[in-house]
């Protein structure tokens, strides 16, 4: 399972041993399946799953908005940056290719604008906002793995000039997204 640097730093901060064998050393974390909310350099941690002695920690950033298809958006005035979340990259596995849209193309909230390929699967990436693509992350052509290692920073996918901000209320805040991910993983 792909592991991001975010999760690794979080695990190191919490002194969680991976693979998990019961209680984590050096902390009073409860056993698997319970959410942990710890603020760490502005990051809100989601303790998702301990299955087959393997611990998954997914990061959810506090200053972002989230779509139910697991994309994040950082809005700064009339501009927005879009990528896929730590939860998504972990479930997809190692990303080997990113299909990017053309700069200047239009994106619509909820509609696919590109795809990521992870080993055997292509997965649509859907835009959380509507607008015009002003920049794509060309680094992903040579280094698609940035989506895994740095989903919220170097692994950003597109920058969008927003049509307006009417799309934003539809998106989830970090707390709601965290609960959404928990519910999704618990339904397995």
């Amino acid at each position, binding site marked *: 399972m792909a592991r991001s640097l975010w999760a690794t730093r979080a695990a190191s901060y919490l002194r969680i041993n991976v693979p998990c064998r019961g209680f984590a050393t050096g902390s009073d974390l409860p056993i698997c399946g319970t959410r942990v909310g710890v603020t760490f350099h502005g990051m809100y941690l989601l303790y998702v799953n301990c299955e087959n002695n393997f611990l998954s920690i997914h990061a959810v950033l506090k200053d972002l908005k989230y779509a139910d298809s697991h994309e994040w958006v950082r809005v700064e005035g009339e501009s927005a940056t879009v990528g896929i979340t730590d939860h998504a990259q972990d479930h997809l596995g190692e990303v080997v290719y990113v*299909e990017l849209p053309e700069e200047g193309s239009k994106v619509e909230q909820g509609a696919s604008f590109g795809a990521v390929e992870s*080993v*055997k699967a292509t997965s649509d990436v859907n835009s959380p906002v509507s607008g015009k693509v002003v920049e794509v992350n060309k680094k992903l052509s040579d280094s698609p793995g940035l989506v895994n290692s740095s989903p919220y920073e170097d692994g950003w996918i597109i920058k969008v000039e927003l049509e307006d901000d009417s799309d934003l209320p539809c998106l989830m805040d970090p707390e709601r997204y965290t609960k959404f991910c928990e519910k999704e993983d618990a*339904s397995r």
Partner: protein
Amino acid sequence: MAASQARKAGLPIINLLRVKGMPILQQLHLEERLLRTSSQNWCIINDGTTRPTIVMGVSGKAKELLETDAVLRDEIPVIRRFTGGGTVIVDQGTIFVTFICNKDAISGLQSYPRPIMSWSSLIYKNMFQGIGEFSLRENDYVIGNHKFGGNAQSITKNRWVHHTSFLWDYEISNMGYLKMPTRVPEYRQARNHAEFICRLKEYMSRSDFIDGTMDSVASHFALRSLDADDIQNSSSQFEPSSRILTRQELGEEASMELVGTVSQISYMAAISSTCPTSKIA
């Protein structure tokens, strides 16, 4: 389980389309159209395709994956499909099984690559009891440690497709068009194609495999059998992305542009003329 019993059991409905000899490009176009424009669940079984055809995944690079000189010389069609994954060469000895489902069709199944892959192996597991040591090894169906089925997927917001090409039989000489890929499963252990794969026909008859697959699908879904006439293209605006690569894309020299243009026309004509209309099984 009979369809009526399956419905009573609350199983999801799936449309079953069984065809024979559908050209692989036509199959891929149908799959992508159903994925993107249908809201129903589908199972497509295509018993063999037509002429030998190479099919690469969405990001496949011909120069890295193929012996392009031989491919060009022998005019083997090369398709880039809409799903991920690796490269296969398919022909009359290949059996294709495809599932196209809504993300909530199967209770408790998350629409991510690994869960879908694991679920798919359940369809075939029981068919090999007492016959061979079937398992899902990384992303391949194997008997022992020999691959006989390759998988690929495409996942959208609300639906997914999982398709498999089964090596019921194959021409070993065709494997010569494929290079050893740089990205291989660990269990392959540097084996060449001949040492790595096996023929399903050594374990069961073609009809037993297809009938067994249909029986297994019927135990997971409520089947509704359709034929090709039932799925005439009503979404004429949909443009599938799977396509045949041009000779230039396969690396034919640019300096031979005029010759390449003529050869491209004859190449495409040759492909079209040898793709008969698919037959319904």
